């Protein structure tokens, strides 16, 4: 019988071995989404021949951007510990305001764009202020503003245009210029690419830099992780939260402008329900529903998953009615994965 001599390992050894690079990678919030995206990509490539065509890929990217731009700011807000259920209809509100002001007052469209920016930012500020002043959960406060905006969108549009949609602003001054900023289409190598895809990537990059490299980012994580601790060490909690709501309203304005200049007219009932898709993108991308954890890149991957799934189902020639079922299942799976991640992070494993 051979004898093995058990040596008590030195305390420093035990410490060094504790965190391998692989562990570190697995600890990133977006890793689950990345794996999911790769799996879905391979899956749809196999089941849908049309999926791998360049034109399909550009469609997938466009759909992803249409969720992704809002998912950027919604993920920041969620890391900061809050929800905004008014995010979906606020996009429509913003587009309606720009369209209505330009058309009814026969102004240059840029005037409408500017007014819309001011009003939409004010709406975000109002959401933040209501949350801060009432102390109610942001879920409730923004549920209220969600219904109010949805009602105002329809009410005002019918009152002013006697229709549920706004008239086309295609012929107005400045339209082409604004379109080239918010909704230009380029053909690159025979494939159409919309500028919104580029803007989406720019926003993700800015948000990532903000989160990881700036003081504001530190504060966002802190107010979401533990608002009372953050306050105790001098973080301006109120200001940070209001700024996050305004971030959501900023991207709502931006995406609203894309819709307006891409489609020329705005449907006043649009946007309802999208707020949940934004939240799903953020959660699938690793944001915790409880705040304090997540990433903008993760939310982008979440949006890309959304784009792949919503179009992949069509390319596979399945009935698109099933899409929402997949979406719900994905949300549940992601939430469970996130829960495990958080337990590990908090309980020291």
């Amino acid at each position, binding site marked *: 019988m051979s004898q093995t001599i058990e040596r008590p390992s030195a305390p420093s050894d035990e410490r060094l071995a504790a965190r391998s690079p692989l562990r570190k990678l697995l600890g990133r919030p977006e890793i689950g989404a990345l794996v999911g995206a790769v799996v879905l990509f391979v899956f749809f490539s196999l089941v849908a021949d049309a999926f791998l065509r360049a034109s399909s890929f550009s469609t997938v990217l466009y759909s992803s951007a249409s969720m992704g731009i809002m998912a950027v700011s919604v993920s920041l807000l969620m890391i900061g510990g809050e929800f905004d259920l008014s995010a979906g209809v606020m996009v429509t509100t913003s587009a309606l305001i720009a369209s209505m002001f330009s058309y009814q007052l026969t102004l240059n469209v840029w005037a409408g764009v500017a007014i819309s920016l001011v009003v939409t930012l004010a709406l975000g500020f109002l959401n933040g202020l209501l949350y801060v002043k009432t102390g109610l959960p942001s879920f409730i406060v923004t549920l209220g503003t969600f219904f109010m905006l949805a009602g105002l969108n329809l009410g005002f549009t019918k009152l002013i245009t006697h229709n549920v949609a706004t008239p086309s602003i295609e012929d107005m001054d400045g339209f082409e210029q604004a379109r080239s900023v918010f909704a230009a289409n380029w053909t690159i190598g025979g494939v159409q690419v919309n500028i919104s895809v580029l803007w989406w990537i720019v926003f993700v990059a800015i948000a990532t830099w903000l989160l990881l490299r*700036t*003081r504001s980012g530190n504060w966002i994580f802190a107010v979401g992780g533990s608002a009372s601790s953050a306050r105790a060490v001098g973080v301006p909690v109120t200001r940070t939260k209001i700024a996050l709501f305004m971030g959501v309203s900023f991207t709502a304005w931006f995406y609203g402008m894309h819709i307006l200049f891409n489609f020329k007219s705005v449907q006043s009932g649009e946007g309802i329900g999208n707020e949940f898709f934004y939240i799903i993108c953020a959660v699938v991308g690793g944001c915790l529903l409880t705040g304090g954890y997540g990433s903008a890149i993760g939310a982008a991957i979440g949006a890309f998953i959304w784009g792949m799934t919503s179009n992949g189902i069509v390319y596979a020639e399945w009935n698109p009615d099933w899409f929402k079922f997949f979406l719900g299942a994905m949300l549940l799976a992601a939430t469970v994965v996130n829960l495990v991640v958080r337990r590990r992070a908090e309980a020291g494993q």
Partner: protein
Amino acid sequence: MTARHEAGRPSLVELTGVGKRYGNVIALRDITLQVNAGEITCVLGDNGAGKSTLIKIIAGLHRHDEGVFRVDGREVAFGSPREALEHGIATVYQDLAVVPLMPVWRNFFLGSEKRKGSGPLKRLDIGFMRGTAKEELLGMGIDLRDVDQPIGTLSGGERQCVAIARAVYFGAKILILDEPTAALGVKQAGVVLRYVVQARERGLGVVFISHNPHHAYPVGDRFLILKRGRSIGYHTKDEITLDELTAQMAGGAELDQLAHELESAGVKGAPELREEARDLGASD
């Protein structure tokens, strides 16, 4: 009720006859206390004795209604914790200290981030903050394997130590610790107590709240014992032993009451118990 006064230099914090009411509840009455640089002042007492109320006055969360509160010899009444911080008074709460999911170094600098660059490119000086956090913690004897790990993965005691190291680094002159050892095991409590002593050796004045005399006695220089909002003893270490401190905390009056009950029940030894209570000077 002795209060040794250092000749010449004023105490960092000095309370004289301080009282506090919450509506008609008298939470504190006639409290006198000094905190000197390089000394640990322990505040002991049972639940509801007024310990937290006392430190909330010093930390700027509440204003006192009676008496005089001096910092560095000048009379003050703080309106907010910020004002207290500006006077170098840092408070470490058991659970209010950190954001669990954030890395250790981010927690260390939270609220006082070091930045570099300018304009829109102004950004966190991550290298500096990481290095400094590691160094400062090492300086207090905490050897972390990785300052990037979420602070929630540290043990309760280690977390407490990070909060203390942080207060020391940001130039606190007075450190207030509200029951830092209450939720900790024997070993962990020992670790925290060692850092409390280190903070004293760096020349800080420490206010240490506890209801455990076994934690307070070994590290403390002065002991204030509270009971129902009143001071029932204020001693320097050389005036009191651990046993006396424990007995006084348990409450001379209670012992007296107990003696009464035992006596009427005809138990032998009750008079001695009563005698002891009287010796402790708390039978009123």
